[in-house]
């Protein structure tokens, strides 16, 4: 059996006393597209930097195709990270894109030109127009696309993208998304994307991982933020419309606790339940699995998502705007 492209074991990364990331075990298979979702400061960028071998974890091990992977090792040339803030070297676009190829000892001018031009075309930039442009004569979106072209020129086995569409216009974002998918289709590149572009993330990835407070959740989960009142071993969240949510309180003291509920444990019912809420259907999205639809329900500041059979949606008319009763498990995890 082939080893996973990435395997992470007992990884801890801290900045001073603050633990930024803690992963007991994690694997990524070749050719997967994985979305990393989570609030700012959750640990997404840290995970990408560590997998991209640009930062060494405080402790723990990373394996690439079964072999230990470290910064400056040979395997680091097969992985490429596009950081959150695009950065170009103080040289023209051609030389920027050619840089990674040159350090890989590709010196033949014809090959360099072919690879650079192909990468620029992939990100929707005309080579004739942009190749000789200096680094300072590019817009934000163009800079981001050139930065992506620098990575695509290397035909990486793994492409790690840290919010690639966060600071660009819709047009550039569209071209970036298209280029990433093309790279995946051309070279079966494994792609990990941290992004807040939920429409894109709903559409493209094979898997979604949630990152919160430095922990990674590989199952479909939902977060319910506080404030929680802790009374007699119960955690209570009061809503403005008079509804209450009551769970068993966290067994240890946690600052600003957040409840975690697996999507698989959420059910739609047609009458109020002991642990549940009356919520409004906000979205019904199609999934890669044609028979299932993703339902998003919300109440005030919380929203929950889970999958449901297409026939049930039709039968009970679960359309956006309709109220539904949601049954939740009494026992939840806390973070």
């Amino acid at each position, binding site marked *: 059996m082939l080893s996973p492209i990435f395997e992470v074991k007992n990884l801890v990364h801290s900045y001073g006393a603050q633990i930024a990331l803690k992963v007991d075990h994690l694997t990524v298979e070749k050719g997967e597209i994985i979305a990393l979702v989570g609030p700012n400061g959750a640990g997404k960028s840290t995970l990408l*930097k560590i997998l*991209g*071998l*640009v930062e060494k974890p405080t402790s723990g091990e990373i394996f690439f195709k079964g072999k230990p992977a470290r*910064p*400056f090792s040979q395997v*680091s*040339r097969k992985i*490429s*990270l*596009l*950081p959150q*803030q695009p*950065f170009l*070297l*103080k040289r023209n676009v051609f030389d920027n894109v050619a*840089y*990674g190829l040159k*350090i*890989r000892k590709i010196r033949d001018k014809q090959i360099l030109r072919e690879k650079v031009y192909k990468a620029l075309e992939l990100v929707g930039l005309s080579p004739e127009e942009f190749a000789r442009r200096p680094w300072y004569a590019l817009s934000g979106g163009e800079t981001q696309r050139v*930065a992506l072209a*620098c*990575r695509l020129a*290397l035909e990486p086995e793994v492409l790690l993208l840290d919010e690639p569409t966060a600071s660009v216009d819709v047009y550039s974002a569209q071209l970036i998304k298209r280029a990433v998918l093309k790279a995946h289709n051309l070279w079966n590149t494994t792609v990990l994307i941290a992004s807040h572009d939920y429409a894109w993330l709903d559409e493209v990835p094979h898997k979604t991982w949630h990152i919160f407070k430095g922990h990674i959740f590989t199952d479909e989960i939902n977060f319910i933020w506080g404030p929680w009142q802790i009374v007699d071993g119960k955690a209570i969240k009061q809503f403005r419309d008079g509804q209450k949510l009551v769970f068993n309180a966290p067994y240890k003291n946690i600052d600003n606790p957040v409840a975690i509920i697996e999507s698989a444990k959420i059910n739609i019912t047609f009458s109020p339940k002991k642990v549940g809420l009356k919520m409004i259907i906000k979205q019904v999205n199609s999934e890669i699995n044609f028979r299932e639809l993703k339902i998003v329900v919300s109440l005030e500041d919380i929203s929950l998502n889970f999958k449901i059979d297409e026939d049930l949606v039709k039968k009970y008319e679960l359309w956006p705007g309709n109220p539904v009763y949601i049954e939740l498990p009494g026992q939840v995890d806390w973070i």
Partner: protein
Amino acid sequence: MGYITEGIIKAFELLITFDPETYSAIEATLKVSSYSMAASLAIGIPLGFCLGFYEFPGKRSVRTIVDTLLALPTVLIGLLVYALLTQKGPLGKYGLLFTLKGVAIGQAILALPIVIALTATAVESLDRNLRITLLSLGVNRFQLLLTCLWEARFGILTAAVAAYGRVLTEVGISLMVGGNIKWHTRTITTAIALETSKGQFAMGIALGLVLLTIALLVNLSLSFLRKRC
């Protein structure tokens, strides 16, 4: 005010007529500043790069010392180098006192803190994303250092220009270590000091203008070089 006009006319006259004394001072100035700059850049750029790039215990103290040395008076350097090179001094056997090489040693000491401090500042002010970008493109350790140095090239060029300006215009070291010997160690600045003490203001101004012309030519070439990079 007549001195200034007279000085400008005299400057042209000296240059156009290839006045041997003036050209000897120009040659001495160019030679000594080239030696001192070559030495200070060769030593100062790697040291400045290390100071700016790496984190090590005592880095802040080293930085404070280097910054303090920026204010080193030329007469103090002149005195120290004189003491080292004089016959009774530890380096007296090499016979460098009252030679251009001796002056160059003093000027290199003058330029070194400038090159180190400004190179370190240029490297420190490199974007923190540069390192992440280079690592994400697969550089090895040597390529990382080399590319960071190249990315700091404009700052390092500024360091060289600032150091050259200081070396070209100093008079204390040249006078004390060189001895202002005609046809031998007389530089433009020591010649100006001499002409002024003789009351030959026009000649002094003329030599001053020649010095400024050299500085202009050097800066023009560096500016051209900057555009090419």
